[in-house]
């Protein structure tokens, strides 16, 4: 089946077996292997990509479902240099083996936007107040991304630093 979508701002057209997941379309057919396959079950988050501004598990979604979509992968997070978030992950040692890292980064990027838009989470006390990025909110919102090396302290410190930088930056 023929399919067209945009990945990291580049239009792509593929002719795929309908069984191909979005994750395998990226990894096997576009050689964008930054997105990782940790479970192929939607349980680990290593394959997290951003579709139309929302984070999803690319392994749980068939490529065919994304006709016309705008997809951002870890390869699309950096521009000229590393993004603030990527740099913060290095500074705070937010990874060890690095396998879950692309998913953590895509998830964190979209999560910060969710907070900025006022989306509540399971631990949000007041659904009418603006969402705050507290430690509890951050941990809750990032708990769909497993890290067996257990870099959660570094991941959280990196995200908080990047969020602070972002808030301070008028752009």
């Amino acid at each position, binding site marked *: 089946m023929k399919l067209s979508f945009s990945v990291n701002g580049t239009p792509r057209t593929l002719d795929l077996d309908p069984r191909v997941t979005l994750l395998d379309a990226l990894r096997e057919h576009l050689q964008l292997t930054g997105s990782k396959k940790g479970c192929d079950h939607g349980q680990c988050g290593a394959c997290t990509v951003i579709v139309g501004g929302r984070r999803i598990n690319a392994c749980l979604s068939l490529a065919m479902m994304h006709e016309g979509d705008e997809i951002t992968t870890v390869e699309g997070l950096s521009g000229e240099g590393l993004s603030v978030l990527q740099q913060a992950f290095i500074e705070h040692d937010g990874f060890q083996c690095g396998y879950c890292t692309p998913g953590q980064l895509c998830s964190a990027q979209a999560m910060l936007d969710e907070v900025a838009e006022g989306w509540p989470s399971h631990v949000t006390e007041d659904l009418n107040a603006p969402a705050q990025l507290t430690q509890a909110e951050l941990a809750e919102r990032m708990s769909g991304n497993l890290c067996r*090396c257990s*870099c959660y302290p570094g991941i959280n410190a990196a995200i908080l630093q990047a969020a602070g930088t972002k808030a301070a930056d008028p752009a």
Partner: protein
Amino acid sequence: MSVEMKIDGPEQAQGDQTGAQAVLGYAADRPEGGLKVTGAAPYAAEPCPANMAHGFLVRAPGLGKVRLTNLEVVQGMAGVLTVLRDDRMIRNAAQGTSEGAPVQGVDQAEYVGQPIALVVAESFEQARHAALALRVDTAGDDLVVNPQDAVAADDDIDETAQGDLESAFASSAHRIDQTYTTPSLISAAMEPHAALAEWDGDKLVLRASLQMLKYSRTEIADCVGIAPEDVRVLAPYVGGGFGSKLGICAEAVAAALAARQLGRPVRVVQHRRQVFEVNTRRSETTQRIRLCADMNGQLTGIGHQALVSNLPGEDFAEPVLQATHFAYAAPNRLLRREVLRLHRPAAGSVRAPGEAVGVTAFEIAMDELACAAGIDPVALRLRNIPRNDPESGLPFSSHRLAECLTDGSRRFGWSKRPTAPRQQREGEWWIGTGMAAAFRVNSMMEAEARVVLSAQGVRVETDMTDIGTASYAILGQIAAERLGHPLSRTEVILGDTDLPPSSGSGGSFGAASTGTAVWLACEELRRMLAGRMGCDAADLTLKDGYALCDNRRRAIADLLDGASVTGHGRVQPGEAGDKVRQATTGAHFAEVAVSDMTGEVRVRRLAGTYAAGRILNPRTARSQCHGGMTWGIGMALTEALIHDRRDGHVVNRDFEAFHLPVNADVPDLDVAFVEDRDDWLGPLRAKGLGELSICGAAAAVINAVHHACGVRVRDLPATPDRVLEGLV
């Protein structure tokens, strides 16, 4: 040429040589960080050579003789190239450092989930579809799968005894006699086991996710039936291992055989649910622990009896008693381990084999003794630190447990703790604190490395792997320090068996072993540079690309005169292991909240203070400790592989049902290191660190649960149902 060293004693520490560059021991960034945060680091399943075929392993759904009933149908399915069934395929992953093939064969399923065929097709989707369509029947043997149905053979029993435990126990002032159980556990690295095999004539190139390439090269050669020299293994990036990638794994052997048969590259990746059964698990344990002490809390007897299991034909036996041999002094001792032969997936090394479960149970028992004797748990441990190894009488190379306990308790605020349990309550939550000591044996393995110095800078080359353990960072830091170069001009090449054979990653020995080989390779280069400067190597200072001695200063590039020079280092364990007992130690402190309504446990604080030789990079060292401590939280509260009682199969073989800690389960973790100047380590003075922090961390949590709500959990993990049972 080469600089070689055997670690025989303190003479090899060579004073306190570091260097002038001030990079070793500093919190340097991981040099491969940029590749990892942009998705550019290539893991095993990522190269995609032209004409590559995809393989998918087929599992045995039952035990006994295997029969395929629709093979011809599957062979005719779209895209299918072959259904490989080869006697050389392996039953389960090789044990670490085995150097030969593990048990092979596909006709008999010795455990449910054993790979019994490989379906290879043009695409991944075709291979998976065909593999799932293959009908596999098993029939026959009535194999033993439950510990209660097995008895250990004489060959599978180890016992050491000193004094008379029974008499000491009977006449003691304080005593406890309890049995603890820990379930099967799994490494569950985030990267599934994966391999890409390509043949160039009779030579095999294998890209795989493995920890110890030197050994795995020999293992796969033996499996396939070729010479090790005809195998090149590449593993520049490994997405976590934790023991599960120590030996060659099923997908690698199958990929190699299929690639040979088809004459094209074949990639095989284990599905996550296969990862949970075809590699190695940590054995379940049943541990009876008897402790007795005099009026003052001085231990008079230690009994530790452990039951573990493995498949027939496997040499590995969970070394549950490894730390009990030296952790605490007591004149009367009985240590006994029995291995039951069960047809569950193979057991093998998982992060800190032995101590992870052995120290955990023992440190819960110590807490029970402290309660029984009315002694503070920290004081009880301080009172029982042995002067020498309690069994062999050998001195310790260094022993910093007392400092870990006192510094750790001060950092944590232990003295504010009420003595009795069930004293603090916040709404529905009982609050409590607990502690446990940490012990882990320290060892060194043979390792080689090459260091090339040129006008461009320093390049380190070895087949060492970085499984998240910061090998890229620390090996570069060692070379930069010794050769006086900034890290920006230091490059580290790893994960290729064409490079000098290292220790590999495992058993916490990688940094000390391969790091020392790098140090020795640099030593050869330092001698060479000293010769060109006309001075003694000992008087030479190397810094920022310059050589200095006797008030003379020359650029190292000038001394090289356009050429590159190569140093080679090789370290071997020597007599040190026969002369001293060497270990790493630590102390864990935990604060938990336990819901009186649901039995749910939340860890509020967890702190670890560790003594582990020279800390090469405090930032990456701290991250490793975070990892171990978090594994401790998982072991205490959520992690358990559940075996079906009928056929032993792993019921919960994915992340939906096997609960490893997620972000919200982990509080702020406090990590501290005490200085541990151990002279029995060679010039690098480094010890293992990757495993110490899991040893006993779970016990601190379990002991805190008891302090919070009075419930003593002896069957791990402390799931809400088990805690609630004690609360009502």
